[in-house]
């Protein structure tokens, strides 16, 4: 079939584009984690601020990603450079990560925290050694959602000049090349699903089994 032929003939080009795609997401998720986990931790005890911040995040989510990119490129600091794409991805990952960090930290059983305080642990210690580890499954879930979303949104960054798998789709449409379009669509789908399954697998490996057991019991 045409598509298979196209894939074979251009496999190195496709590989390049795939790597570009992954690099973009990689940079974005690392920065996103640094920023948003910090934010989530910072607002864990401040409900009002948390609500405001989460509302702002929701607002960003309802702005179509292509539009956000379009606006960013008109700002001189960002322009047609990769930083616009990275910034957009970071903004869209805000809600999945911040919301999950905030919620998870606040759902830690108060009695455990009381016990820890009783044992003389400082707030910082409690955070580091009890709250965060217990919140890990939910935070992982948030990262998973953020990453899968990023695969799709990164695809759209080609409209502001990024070179990644989205190019196959965009060029395919523009040049009436069904083989390119199908190849592109299948590739990004595979990456998205792959990332989803990978994080799911990592979660099982990294998060303590006891926590996962609890999570599954609650049916979510």
């Amino acid at each position, binding site marked *: 079939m045409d598509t298979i032929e*196209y894939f074979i003939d*251009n496999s190195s*080009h496709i590989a390049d584009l795939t790597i570009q795609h992954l690099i973009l997401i990689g940079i974005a998720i690392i920065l996103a984690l640094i920023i948003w986990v910090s934010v989530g931790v910072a607002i864990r005890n401040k409900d009002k601020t948390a609500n405001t911040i989460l509302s702002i995040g929701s607002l960003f989510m309802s702005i179509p990603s292509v539009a956000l990119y379009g606006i960013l490129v008109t700002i*001189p600091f960002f*322009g*047609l*450079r990769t930083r616009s794409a990275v910034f957009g991805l970071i903004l869209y990952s805000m809600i999945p990560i911040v919301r999950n960090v905030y919620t998870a930290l606040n759902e830690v059983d108060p009695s455990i925290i009381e016990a820890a305080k009783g044992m003389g642990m400082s707030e910082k210690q409690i955070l580091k050694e009890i709250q965060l580890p217990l919140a890990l499954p939910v935070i992982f879930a948030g990262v998973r959602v953020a990453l899968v979303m990023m695969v799709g949104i990164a695809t759209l960054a080609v409209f502001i*000049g990024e*070179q990644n798998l989205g*190019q196959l789709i*965009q*060029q395919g*449409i*523009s*040049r*009436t*090349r069904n*083989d390119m379009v199908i190849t592109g669509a299948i590739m990004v789908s595979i990456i998205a699903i792959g990332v989803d399954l990978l994080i799911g697998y990592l979660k099982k490996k990294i998060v303590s089994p006891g926590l996962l057991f609890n999570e599954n019991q609650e049916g979510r």
Partner: protein
Amino acid sequence: MINISKKITILTILIISFAIIFTGCGNGQEDMLELAASIEFLERDDGIHALEEEYGFEFGDDNIQTMEVGLSYSSLDEEEVDVAMGFATDGRIPAFDLVILEDDKNFFPVYNPAPTINNEILEEYPELEEIINQLPPLLDEEKLPQLNQEVDIEEREPVDVAREFLEENELLGDYEDERDGPTIGIGSKAWTEQLILGNLLVELLESHGYPVDDRTGLGETPVLRNAMESGEIDLYWEYTGTVLMTVMEDEEITEAEEAYQRVKDWDEAENDIIWLDYASANNTWTLMMLEEKAEELGIESISDLADHINELRN
């Protein structure tokens, strides 16, 4: 249980929804010819409306669909529209059995492509002028469409076609390492001919050892001009007619050399952009139709089209 008032609410919403859906359907006269054009062409001063004025007819806003140029060929093929704007050198014209309507009143200006380069980079590498100017003389009215067809019909990749062309003409250098100096950003628009032209530059310069940033397929004219200004890119092929009409907003010129000199002088003075030599290929806008349909309606030129539409209106 769902009671009456809620049922009414749901029903009302459904009715309003269907109303909205169906207001869209069924408008415009039957048989009236539909046109597909890009937004740029619709809004340019030398675009559709100027064309309509010159030829004395009107499509009518209801009968114009805007879409990206790349899609217009398919839209004719799938009979979504009857007439479409496209580029004269596109390989899909023969591939989809489309015909170009003759521009009997010479409305469309010339669009000769030439490499445009930021003066700053040229000053850094003055030898680029000579290297790059080897290209334009080789890209004449026959050659450029031929290269386009290799991509559009034979489905080869622009970069491969470009490379082969350079090899055939023995233009590739064999510089092993990379020179020191600023990176040269090379851009292009996102369609076949531009991709080929852009890749010609990328492959050529890289083979001579220049540090190149491949930004082909970046976007349309405004995006590229903007990128040149900001320094995102330093070099890309632009068309004399395009800058003349849309950037300078000047009057149309149908003579190649005259158009070229005009834009060359202006861009150098105003924007510090240097136009290198131009190619004789003229990639102008055209109105296209399915060959079958054009024959059926007896339309060969844009004047024929104008007559036909005027008849339909009366």
